[in-house]
């Protein structure tokens, strides 16, 4: 038994590379440490032998069991949410260890990998550091998109955590699991039915079982419970983390939720809106070059609103640039092939993309992409995959559903249909976090203002909603903070400085009571050197003090809007 040292803060790994990759690679929704990458490091980067703070509690990092079928493989596990009565197997609360093996992370941390099956099909992989490397903590890594794959939680294990990943109960990220038998043979006249078990497993059960199973294995392997448990995810992983805070508040002491996909039904109903308005107003997809033209014009028009001309819009909600009335780029003589200008129809479509999904009366159904965000993720040559998968396999259960049937007249009905079918299962937007708060949990949420896949006003709306039911913004600050990152894309990337040390800020808050007054964001400058900026707890935002370098975070303060 030894007092195991926790990780010491170290300079960040370069997050930019991975983040940019995440944002540009096929524009898929990214997860936390597992399903993708975050702008921050997925886990603290200290090595297990790092000198640093010591836990108040002693941690036994020496396994009590061998890493084989006779040792940890013989442990009896139970799931605490049984399968549905209608599932095969019915009412099954079992959890079976299917494999035990050993491995070593790239930085040399040896681990015992335990693969667990929770019926009907949830695969959970738990990596238990060996050789005295366990730091006493558990970290669950969130997924991305529709999840559907599982791997070794390398980033977490490398830093000494017990690292956990899950496939969320199905294989493949196409979203077809929302429908029984993947809607095979179904069509509009013969629609399929929702697969409630697999939807449940994806919505919350698998993520909860990561904590349940992980803690059982930790108890058996090390002879004690984890001192602290954490969630780390972005996009779908952000939604999963928020769902845990809302529904299973005792599972995790600290949660990092990036770009949460918590309004799963509505923002995904919006995701087809850009395609619809392009088809109707512009006659088809708008080239990326034209979209960039409009985005750059918006940035030029609104860059200085935040007091600093740096090519980044500080708060795009304050930007009302309208390409329809911008004669410098929108011309009646323009053609769809001319990338130096916009046709009036193209300008109209882009303005409607920014304006959000609306009904025929103009009522805002869901806010749109912000000015400054790349448009080619949702308004590319073809629809974003999830934008079509959700209607087909979660709303109409008809694999032949054709998005080109959408019009301004019937879009509201489509939006309602989506809400009716998807919201009850997938909504992860309950603003009452009092149970999580009362248990002492700490929550850091963040999102890029230039998120090209999940509309950023969803996360500000949620934070506002929590403030509305839990005593106002100041009452949230001691335990829940939200950071908006100007110019940053989906889980990272974009032209803005990238958030750093996000996950470590959660750890420091939980274990030392050190709340993140700001999150430092940084980016490499073209002429050399590094720009740093503070990200401020929403609704405050960074404001230049008027003197000193605008590349130095020290010359900014957090100011109310």
């Amino acid at each position, binding site marked *: 038994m030894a007092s195991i040292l926790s990780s010491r803060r170290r300079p960040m790994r370069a997050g930019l590379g991975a983040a940019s990759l995440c944002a540009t690679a096929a524009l898929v929704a990214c997860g936390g440490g597992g399903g993708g990458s975050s702008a921050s490091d997925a886990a603290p980067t200290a090595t297990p032998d790092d000198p640093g703070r010591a836990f108040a509690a002693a941690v036994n990092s020496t396994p009590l069991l061998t890493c084989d079928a006779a040792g940890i493989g013989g442990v009896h596990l139970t799931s605490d949410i049984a399968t549905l009565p209608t599932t095969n197997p019915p009412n099954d609360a079992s959890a079976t260890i299917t494999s035990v093996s050993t491995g070593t992370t790239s930085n040399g941390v040896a681990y015992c990998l335990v693969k667990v099956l929770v019926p009907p099909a949830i695969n959970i992989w738990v990596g238990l550091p060996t050789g005295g490397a366990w730091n006493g903590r558990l970290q669950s890594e969130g997924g991305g998109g529709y999840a559907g794959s599982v791997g070794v939680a390398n980033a977490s294990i490398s830093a000494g955590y017990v690292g956990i990943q899950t496939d969320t109960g199905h294989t493949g990220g196409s979203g077809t699991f929302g429908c029984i038998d993947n809607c095979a043979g179904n069509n509009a006249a013969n629609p399929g039915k929702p697969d409630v078990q697999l939807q449940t497993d994806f919505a919350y059960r698998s993520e909860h079982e990561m904590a349940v199973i992980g803690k059982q294995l930790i108890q058996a392997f090390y002879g004690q419970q984890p001192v602290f448990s954490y969630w780390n995810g972005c996009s779908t992983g952000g939604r999963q983390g928020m769902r845990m805070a809302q529904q299973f508040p005792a599972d995790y002491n600290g949660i990092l939720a990036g770009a949460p996909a918590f309004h799963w039904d509505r923002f995904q109903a919006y995701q087809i809106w850009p395609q619809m308005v392009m088809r109707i107003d512009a006659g088809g997809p708008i080239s990326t070059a034209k979209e960039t033209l409009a985005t750059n014009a918006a940035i030029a028009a609104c860059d200085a609103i935040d007091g600093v001309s740096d090519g980044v819009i500080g708060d795009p909600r304050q930007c009302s640039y309208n390409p329809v009335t911008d004669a410098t780029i929108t011309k009646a003589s323009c053609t769809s092939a001319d990338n130096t200008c916009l046709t009036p129809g193209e300008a109209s479509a882009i303005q409607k993309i920014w304006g959000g999904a609306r009904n025929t009366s103009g009522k805002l159904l869901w806010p749109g992409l912000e000015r400054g965000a790349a448009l080619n993720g949702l308004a590319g040559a073809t629809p974003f995959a999830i934008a079509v998968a959700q209607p087909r396999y979660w709303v109409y259960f008809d694999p032949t559903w054709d998005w080109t049937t959408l019009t301004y007249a019937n879009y509201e009905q489509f939006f309602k249909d989506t*809400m*009716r079918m998807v*919201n009850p299962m997938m909504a992860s*937007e309950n*603003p*009452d976090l009092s149970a999580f708060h009362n248990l002492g949990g700490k929550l850091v949420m963040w999102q890029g203002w230039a998120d090209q896949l999940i509309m950023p006003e969803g996360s500000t709306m949620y934070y506002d*909603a929590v403030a*509305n*039911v839990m005593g106002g913004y100041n009452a949230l600050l001691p335990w829940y903070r939200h950071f908006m990152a100007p110019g940053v894309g989906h889980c990272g990337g974009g032209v803005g400085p990238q958030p750093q040390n996000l996950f470590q800020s959660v750890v420091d808050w939980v274990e030392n009571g050190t709340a993140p007054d700001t999150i430092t964001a940084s980016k490499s400058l073209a002429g050399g050197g590094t720009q740093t900026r503070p990200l401020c707890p929403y609704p405050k935002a960074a404001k230049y003090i008027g003197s000193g370098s605008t590349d130095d975070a020290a010359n900014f303060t957090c100011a109310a809007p």
Partner: protein
Amino acid sequence: MRFRNAVLALLGATLLPLLAHAQPVSYSGTLVSGSPATGSAAGFSWFLDQGAGISFWQFSANAGDTVTLSVNRLNGNFDPGLSLYRGTTTADVSAFSSTGNWGGLTFVAGLDDEHAAFMTPGPNGDPFGSFAITTSGLYTVAVGGSLSTDAGSYPFRITMTDVAAVPEPETTALLALGLGVLAMRRRRRAG
């Protein structure tokens, strides 16, 4: 006997869940002109025609009256919508429609977003509108959530004002003349 019990048990098992879900309309109260009342409703209930999350109210009005209805959110997360119907009902809430006739009610109008949000931050606006009453009798008001932040239940305040028709001067004079003629006739008969 054993067969009968089995049938009853089967019927019970089949029907009880259905009966348990049956939910006839229950009115939260009767609106009095100029006296605000408070209630609560579910966040998307009006938008998605989810009658179980709707708050129902009734009032009486006379032909020729002008009735004004307004609902204000009492929590910024709520985005209320309102529908007005002629008549009252005890129909099951599952039949609820925010945009048409249902349960024996005659749809008059729906209101949404006419007022800027009562509290900020919060999505869209609050309902507000006036109606010329053409048929005397009871009316039903359904209040629910339009596009609130979430499906949760939120409080609101509802206010109804009923302004009775004020007769035009010519109408008043004609009425006085008519009453005078009637009085004279009675006097003659009595005489």
